[in-house]
């Protein structure tokens, strides 16, 4: 029950937000145009949608069997993440460097907890869904193609990392310094997060990488949607901070999440003209092989 109610509310709130945002930022003219030329536009992105679907199915499978595989063969890096995080604030506090998460949580207030919990759940989903609506409503297909590829790359690389690296987040490790604020204060969200994610899927922060991706994409479409840039940027920063504030991710996960988000957009840009193909991949492998001097081969 709880699960259904929470998901229902999430879908409703995000749907309302997307409709409002579409009405104001995309505008009725573009939306009407999109409705008229929907077939043509869909044809232009069909292979990309197919790719994304494949990635999502693969992702689902990987998330089902991934934890079992990584349990057996994964590299346990919790200790490393904890040590790295403990050194990040060294420039500010050369003596007794605090853990980033504990330092962030030392500024916690009930209002901030409410804000970051809402951002982590609702803000994040809105930040990812709205660009799909906004970019489908553009006459040129590149932004939506770029978005689909970038989202897919995020998931693919992220899930691969989750299989290879086993780690627990700060709330599970430095439990005496850090509270799992989302789960102690807004427990009902946990039924959703637990359903879509395993608690060892920590490195890197997929929340951060997807949010950064959305923000970078917003910058790439600043001429069409100038108002979206500051909103996406603010949301992306809030999402990244929220993962740390709520004790879910290490700051190191967030830093690698930023890198992953950036890489994913680069991949999206690379393939926005033509979708990636197996042949292209093979050619590139071959080209890379040619770079190796002949006598080494």
């Amino acid at each position, binding site marked *: 029950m709880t699960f259904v109610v929470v998901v229902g509310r999430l879908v409703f709130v995000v749907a309302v937000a997307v409709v409002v945002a579409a009405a104001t930022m995309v505008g009725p003219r573009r939306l009407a145009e999109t409705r008229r030329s929907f077939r043509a536009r869909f044809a232009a992105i069909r292979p990309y949608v197919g790719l994304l679907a494949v990635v999502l199915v693969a992702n689902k499978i990987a998330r089902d069997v991934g934890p079992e595989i990584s349990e057996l063969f994964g590299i346990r890096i919790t200790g490393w993440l904890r040590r790295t995080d403990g050194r990040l604030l060294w420039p500010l506090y050369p003596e007794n460097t605090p853990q980033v998460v504990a330092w962030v949580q030392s500024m916690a207030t009930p209002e901030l907890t409410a804000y970051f919990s809402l951002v982590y759940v609702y803000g994040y989903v809105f930040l990812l869904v709205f660009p799909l609506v906004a970019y489908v409503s553009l006459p040129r297909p590149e932004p939506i193609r770029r978005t689909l590829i970038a989202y897919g790359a995020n998931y693919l690389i992220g899930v691969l990392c989750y299989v290879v690296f086993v780690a627990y987040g700060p709330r599970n*490790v430095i*439990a005496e310094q850090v509270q*799992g604020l989302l*789960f102690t204060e807004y*427990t*009902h969200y*946990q039924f959703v997060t*637990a359903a879509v994610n395993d608690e*060892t899927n920590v490195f890197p922060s997929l929340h951060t990488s997807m949010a950064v991706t959305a923000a970078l994409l917003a910058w790439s479409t600043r001429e069409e949607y100038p108002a979206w840039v500051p909103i996406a940027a603010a949301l992306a920063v809030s999402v990244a901070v929220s993962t740390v504030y709520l004790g879910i991710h290490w700051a190191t996960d967030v830093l690698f999440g930023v890198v992953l988000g950036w890489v994913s957009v680069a991949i999206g840009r690379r393939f926005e003209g033509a979708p990636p193909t197996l042949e292209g991949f093979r050619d590139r492998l071959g080209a890379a092989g040619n770079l190796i001097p002949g006598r080494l081969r």
Partner: protein
Amino acid sequence: MAPDGGGRRAFLTATAGAVATASGCLGEARNLAGRAGTDQLSLRISTLPASHDPYAVRIANRLASNLERAGIAATVDPMGPDVLLRETLFNHDFDVYVARYPSRGAPDELRSMLYSAYGEEAGWQNPFGFSDLDADGLLDEQRAVPDADRPGVVGELQRRIVGQQPFTVVGFPDRIGAFRDGRFEQWPDGGLADPTAYLRLDREEGSTLRLSLRNGRITRNRNPIAAEHRDRGTITGLLYEPLALVDGGADAPIPWLARRIEWDSEGAATVRLRGTPWHDGEALTPRDVAFTYRFLGDTSLGGFDTPVSTPWRRGRVSLVESVEVRSADEVRIEFATENRTIASRALSVPILPAHVWRDRAGSADIAGIDLVRGTTEALVTPNEAAVGSGPFRFEAATANASLSLVEFPEHFLRTGDTDGIPEPLSDPPRFDRIEFDVVPSHDAAVQLLVAGETDATADGLGASVVPRIVRSDALSLTIDRSENFYHVGYNCRRSPLADPRFRRTVARHIDRTAIAEAVFGGYATPAEVPLEDRWVPPELEWDGTASLPFLGTDGELDVDSACEAFREVGYRYEDGLLVRRGST
């Protein structure tokens, strides 16, 4: 210990060799290579993440930070419950671990925990690789002596344990449970810790008992002897039953699958069975009983060079010398001890259906468990369909989400064949279904209770949710002392943990009083011995200070005394770091 130590040293030696050949300054190169030989000692502390065990990781963190201050590189390495148990109990791949021992409070449990001969076996039997002739002698002796002399022997044994520190007891946590008022009554103190607690429940309304479960292992694995998936085996205890119940505070064994138990002058027991079917309709016969004891003693049934014993309840099985089928409903069991109290423990292992398990005696080569020693199918099968004889039978499960058990109408509690079973256990269960829902945290468990979606929590809760329970009018809190204890286990196979003086010094980095307050929020009793009450010798009763006292005050380590303590037992420091010569 330091996994990179050997490699680095080899590399430096090789480099040094190259430099020496090139420049000829052999002395300098030798110095360089020699210096690389001392590395800071590093220890990995395996434990559970806070979402699974809110206490263990905090104890581990405190220990790690104290060891760190004493110059040892200690890393806390959290892992899921089944991973932790597999790594420690089966693969013996750990330095130090912090976890809860699923105790039933019987002194004979210490025999499986510490008996030297079990050091090479997999399971809860001697995971530490501890070997001590004196302790072995006492472990055998406490089985041999009459009841009146046992406390003395068991007390001596615990003195030996405290002295040698194969593991360090931290304390006994309270069992914290919560239930919703109105639908069921007769909730036992501390929640549903035993299969019998389920049978004692009384119903007010509704016929389905809905419980939340934090540890979802039972939704994936229902193998009653898979040690990495079982703690006390409470839920599998609803599916599989023993000949007699000895746990759960009963003074004398309650005949269960046995209708009658008669002891003869030689100390053997003649057990007559009730005649109850398995969940698949086959009859439960004396052959199943004989098979079970033979099978748990060697799950390869003689097929392997070395017997592969059950990793769970090994100690109890070891009490049985032989089982003989006497007639269509009778077996005669001979025991390895003349003490009837101890022998009765052997009657409490789950009886398995021979027609299902006989085929699982073959070799299993599935990844995950160290295969060097050979593993039988029986130990790794998830046993999803779980054919038992219990009052409830398995109906359905979704991995990591839910489990449904339904009443088994042919069970002897239903048919009224309940001679020898006291009230209210002899009454049929008051509900016909149990639905378990796996929850992601203790907070979530309380949330479901408040929302009225569950009736109680099936496994224990952490102290941090107590205020939430108390705040809600519809919920009741129930607390009881538990027999389980938190402990720090050492891998005595590895240097320097093989050194009892080193372990004793590590033990002195644990402040039990501070931990009981800060980690358990007061919901724990500090202790330095693994048994309670009458088994504890007077000088080892907890009086605020351990016999290996904490090296500091009020939870704060005195770094100088800590380093001095390690120095005294022969360890060396360089620049404040405890270093070891070479890697061992």
